[in-house]
Structure formats: C-alpha cells, structure tokens
C-alpha cells in the first residue's frame, strides 16, 4: 500500500498505470484486482491511509506548535510527504466525490490543528508556491511515507 501511495504521489492518478503498480508492488494483477476491485479502489484506500497516517501525524504536530510561524514551518517541512494529498486535491477531488471526501477530511484535520482556516490556507499556499518553483522535491520512491515519523515537534 505504501509503494502504491508513492507511485500515485509521484506520478498522479492518471499517470500511474496498472503495469506500474504491478511492477512496483510485485503483486499479480489478479490479486491486485481481487483485493482492491480496481485501480481507483486501490487509490482511494491509499489516499484514506495517507490522511489517517501522514496528514493526521502532521496535524498532531501542528496542534502542538508554539506559534503560527512554527505551525506553518511544520507544514512546509512535511511538504515532501504530502504529494498524494496535493495531487488528490488538484487532480481527483474535482471529479471524484470519494476522493473529495478524503481531501476534505484532511483539510478539516489541519484546520482543527491550526485553529483557523486562514492559517491552513497560508501554510498550504506556501507549500504550493514551493512546489510551483521546483523548490519542493517530491518524495522519492523508497522513502516510504508509512515508516517515517511525521512528528518533528519536540515538546
């Protein structure tokens, strides 16, 4: 599941073929379909888990931030792990209500942590700027987001 999430985070949903998934996950096509029903089924599971794990961990860290600058800094630091969320917000949420439900859930987690929609928007806007200028390297394959602690705050 982590390997699938990385592929979708790097190459987007449409940019990831079943061939890519089968090759990188090392599973039979038949068992991929049997387990997830479809590529979209696998994608939604990966996105759900991304929100549960990576976004929720970031939200916990942000909730413990001492001030707004630190909160924004934490979101920026987590940027390379948020490729799946960004792609989902831009590519899938507008056309897939199930994906939109997940990205909405992610934003609600961040809003609860920052205490203000405006601050979430500022932090995500800064992230988007970094991605837009090429200053935000995406997570590379092999750097599994599922095994990385997303709790940079020491309290």
């Amino acid at each position, binding site marked *: 599941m982590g390997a699938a999430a990385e592929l979708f985070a790097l190459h987007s949903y449409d940019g990831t073929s*079943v*061939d890519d998934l089968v090759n990188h996950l090392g599973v039979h*096509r038949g068992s991929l*379909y049997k387990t997830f029903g*479809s590529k979209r*089924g696998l994608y939604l599971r990966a996105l759900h888990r991304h929100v549960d794990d990576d976004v929720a961990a970031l939200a916990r860290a942000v909730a413990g931030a001492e001030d707004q600058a630190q909160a924004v800094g934490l979101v920026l630091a987590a940027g390379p792990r948020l490729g799946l969320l960004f792609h989902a917000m831009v590519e899938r949420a507008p056309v897939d209500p*199930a994906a939109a439900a997940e990205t909405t859930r992610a934003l609600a987690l961040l809003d609860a942590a920052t205490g203000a929609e405006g601050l979430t928007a500022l932090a995500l806007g800064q992230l988007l700027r970094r991605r837009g200028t090429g200053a935000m390297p995406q997570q590379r394959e092999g750097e599994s987001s599922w095994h990385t602690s997303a709790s940079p705050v020491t309290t």
Partner: protein
Amino acid sequence: MAHVSIAGDDLIVEVEGLDKLWALKSRLTVPLANVRGATADPGIVREPKGVRSPGTHVPGVIVAGSFYTEGERVFWDVRDRDKAIVIELGDEKYARLVIEVDDPKETVDMIEKAVQHRHS
C-alpha cells in the same frame, strides 16, 4: 467489442458483432452488488491468460472466451489492447471480465460511480 450499460441494479455487458461467434455468450448480466470495480488496463493483454475453456483464440488477433488462471475463470473479449478494461466481480461465475469497449475512460467512470468502495 463490447457495450456496457447499467439498467436498474444490474450491469449489462453485451458482446457485439462478429465477436459473438467467438465468445459464445453475447450478453452477461451481473448485479451491481457483485461488481467490485472497473479499470482501464491496456497492459493486461500481455499477461498470461491461462488455460482456455470453450471459446476461441486466434493468436495475435483475437482473445475471446473464458480462461482459467490461478483457480479463477476470466472472461476475455479483446482485440484492441488500448481499449481493454477490466471489470472485477465477486460471487459470480467469472472472477473478472476483460473486454474491449469504445470509450474505456467513460465506461470505467460509469461503472466506478455505480460501485461503492469500502475503506476497511
């Protein structure tokens, strides 16, 4: 070539034209409750298909009929791999259908919309 539609609570797959001769059965009706998802998957045509049961296979030209692979029965009707889609089924005679449709993206979206994915 196959045509896929949804009527009420059923997914209907009609195999059109000459392919009827090859694939034996020209119309499949599956309750949507037994449809687990659909995916555009051109690459599946290069996969081993397993042992063919009645139907026919003209190498390199047509893949049609039902095949057994890894204990599963899979229905195939594909000529143009770029238009191949996979429909995954549950509690049905066929584990999945691999068929060619005119508009893979639209057909897949239509089926996926009708199918609820659970997050367990």
